[in-house]
């Protein structure tokens, strides 16, 4: 299980919207955070989000210990199960 927390602020909405396009990914809420989870990897295409640098590189609030960021660059954010 990989879990990614994203703070609920307007700039981050597209990150969550793009993440859930993958049917294997589910999104729940924990207070002010979106909790994005999957049994396998979570992959978010940067261009699809429309985010520019400042938001893209600071949109992650937390990554559960079962997952690890394996890519976070101008193309994509990828969290793989450990």
């Amino acid at each position, binding site marked *: 299980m990989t879990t990614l927390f994203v703070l609920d602020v307007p700039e981050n909405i597209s990150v969550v919207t793009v993440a859930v396009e993958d049917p294997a990914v589910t999104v729940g809420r924990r*207070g*002010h*955070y979106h909790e994005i989870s999957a049994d396998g990897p979570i992959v978010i295409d940067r261009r699809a989000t429309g985010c520019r640098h*400042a938001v893209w590189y600071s949109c992650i*609030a*937390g*990554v*559960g210990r079962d997952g*690890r960021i394996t890519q976070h660059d101008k193309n994509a954010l990828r969290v793989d199960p450990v």
Partner: protein
Amino acid sequence: MTEQDHRVRGVDHVAFPTFDPAATVRFYRDVLGFPVVHSICAAGWGPENHPDFIHFFFDIGNDDRIAFFYYFGSSPEVGGPVGEKGDAYARFGADVPEYFVRSRHLAIHVDSEHDLLEYRRRLDASSWPVEMQIQHETIESIYTHDPNGYMFEITRAMRPVTPQEDDDANLTIDALLDVVAGPEPTFGKLLARKAELIVERVPV
């Protein structure tokens, strides 16, 4: 941790040395329009052959002030050899990365895009034009260096900061303190610790 009442009221003044008071006054008073609000003319005193000096202040809004020291008879070498990078206070070799050199800076707040662009107009008409105007998505800033080489930023918020961002900042700091207390702190360890704190503290 006990919550303590928060009594302070912003920046009284932040102070820097200058070796070029004429250009400093032109930049802050004449170009930007920051009024001179205070100055101290002092004969040197104390045990360290303290030079005679002028300590002068400009209003940066909100009754906050930026201040300078001009020491008679001093030149930039008083702070060490002139380097490849840096400013009147701190000089660095060519090998010091730019992100580090730029890390210490003063950012002055404006309320609107209109005000930001007015200061851009004033700077662009001067000898210190805006070097960068950047929208960081949630804030927008203009940058230049003042006559002393100090990085100078004017910034506006694109939207108000929300209460959840303050809560998130506190989780970040608690996670950071945990991670730096352990060996080899990394960004990955911080995000993992922060995820634990979110699960512990934030109700579903």
